[in-house]
């Protein structure tokens, strides 16, 4: 397990290095001079010169890359072109809003999805199973930002049950503002997780130790609750970890729709103002988050299911 952990994190590190390098080269490969793009047409020559020196643009490309990595290691993602604040500070100020929204979405959708899936697997091919299957597929079919828009239209604009804008103040205010966004992000996950749990549950129920438990006369309820479900929810862990990228993507749209603060809104605002250091910093942080969560999901999976360790 120790060797697997080291290997997995080494891989994560390698992926990050390749990804950062690729992104760095991509920015430099863009036609046009980055300084004029960043500062716009009205920039004075002095401003340009100071930015060139600050970003080390007058050095050869490999040296620029080294300087960039040096900055990264010191936790320096550059400086906001407009406010002059450090990009790291700006990104980490917005990150909690996004994370609280994602966490709540995952929690409610996983709880409901696991319950639905387990119930459907315990009663296969009944009417309820069919209905659950149809509902799950329909939920999966709804992209988060479309759900967000429709939820905004129905529950915030028409019915006015929930607030339409912002993140709220105080615990209850924040929670109230989180209802619609996390509903929008979580909805497609309910169906997805339900289907996953149903499939893996059916597989587990066909295995030897379950047959043995049945032969011993344990009740079906007991078998499912204490033997099958524990194994059947394993894929959910992996899927949520791997789905982090997907969650972050949904978060971007949801934050725009509900005008919530967060890294999604940050990145869109920075794109419209051509604030490239902030755009790149945000993309980098979210990529790091995604790589890390995938690695953790793999490790958890290996911890819970020893077979996964050798399969790699």
């Amino acid at each position, binding site marked *: 397990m120790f060797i697997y952990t080291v290997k997995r994190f080494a891989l994560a590190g390698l992926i990050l290095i390749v*990804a950062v390098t690729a992104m760095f080269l991509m920015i430099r490969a863009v036609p046009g001079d980055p300084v004029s793009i960043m500062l716009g047409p009205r920039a004075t020559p002095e401003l340009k010169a100071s930015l060139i020196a600050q970003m080390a643009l007058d050095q050869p490309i490999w040296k620029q890359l080294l300087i960039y990595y040096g900055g990264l290691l010191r936790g320096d993602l550059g400086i906001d072109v407009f406010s002059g604040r450090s990009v790291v500070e700006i990104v980490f100020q917005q990150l909690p809003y996004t994370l609280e929204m994602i966490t709540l979405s995952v929690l409610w959708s996983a709880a409901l999805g696991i319950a639905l899936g387990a119930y459907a697997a315990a009663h296969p091919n009944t009417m309820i199973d069919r209905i659950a299957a149809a509902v799950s597929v329909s939920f999966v079919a709804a*992209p988060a*930002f*479309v759900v967000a828009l429709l939820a905004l239209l129905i529950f915030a604009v028409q019915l006015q049950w929930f607030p339409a804008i912002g993140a709220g103040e105080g615990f209850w205010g924040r929670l109230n503002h989180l209802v619609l966004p996390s509903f929008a992000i979580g909805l497609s996950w309910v169906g997805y997780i339900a289907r996953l749990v149903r499939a893996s549950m059916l597989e587990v129920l066909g295995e030897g130790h379950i047959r043995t438990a049945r032969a011993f006369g344990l009740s079906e309820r007991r078998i499912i609750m204490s033997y099958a479900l524990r194994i059947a929810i394993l894929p959910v862990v992996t899927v949520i970890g791997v789905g982090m990228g997907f969650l972050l*993507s949904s978060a971007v*749209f949801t934050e725009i729709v509900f005008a919530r603060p967060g890294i999604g809104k940050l990145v869109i605002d920075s794109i419209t103002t051509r604030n490239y250091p902030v755009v790149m910093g945000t*993309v980098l942080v*979210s*990529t790091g988050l995604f790589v890390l969560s995938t690695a953790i999901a793999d490790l958890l999976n290996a911890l819970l299911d020893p077979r996964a360790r050798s399969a790699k």
Partner: protein
Amino acid sequence: MSKPRSELSIILRGVAKDPLGLIGLIIVGTIVVSAIFAAWIVPYDPIGMNIPDRMQGPSWSHWLGTDNLGRDTLSRVIMGGQVALKVALPAVFGAMAIGLTLGMIAGYGPKWLDNLLMLFFDTLRSFPTVMFALAVVALVGPSLQTVVLVVMATSIPTYGRVARTQTLTLRNSEFILAERAMGASMARILGVHMLPNIIGVLGVLAAMDVPTVIALEAGLSFLGLGVKPPTPSWGALLKDGYALIRQTPWLVVGGGLPIILATLGFTFLGESLRDVVDPKLRKNR
């Protein structure tokens, strides 16, 4: 696999027998047909402004109302389907072709190449899709081609990994070993013997991938970073509807429902295809 035509008709018949598959087939068929003939069936000019008729609710003359420039929503929805497919189909097929080739090479080639390609896949996959798309669009500017390229790049790893796994399980099967013993080249083994066994699974994956791509295109257009106005796109409809959500809420419905329907249709079709293509899974149901 010797007679591809009869194979295809067996698959289609199998899909049509499954109620969900049939629904999927009908939805996808409707979208494709209306997209192909969009120019002839739209009741109004989808980009023609008509200021006196602006912001009208749904009525007999405008089934889905009009927007703030008096453009007919239904016409824009129909035309938007064309844009959605114009992005989705090249992106999905391109990603499938590249992913398939790289994945088979990774699965069949030497170990170091496999490792290298896997690292390539893992890296591409490590960017959250929308964040990656936003970064690229921010750098090279929004356009239909940018969206296609971004979507293609982000979905290559999925196809690549599946193709690799399939190749790995096939590479030591008897018929492949026999081919190798007879001295068949790598290209021949992969192209003639492996491909027919892998393509079905990837086809299913592609059908399920189309809605993801449609949603991404719509999402980028919603953010104003996809297709440029006045091109009608489902995402652009949502954008206009969102901007005036209190005055013209029917735009949100008109842009949102086709996306949900398209997703539903392609997902049903993909699932039903999987059950037909992969008999092992069919038994489980």
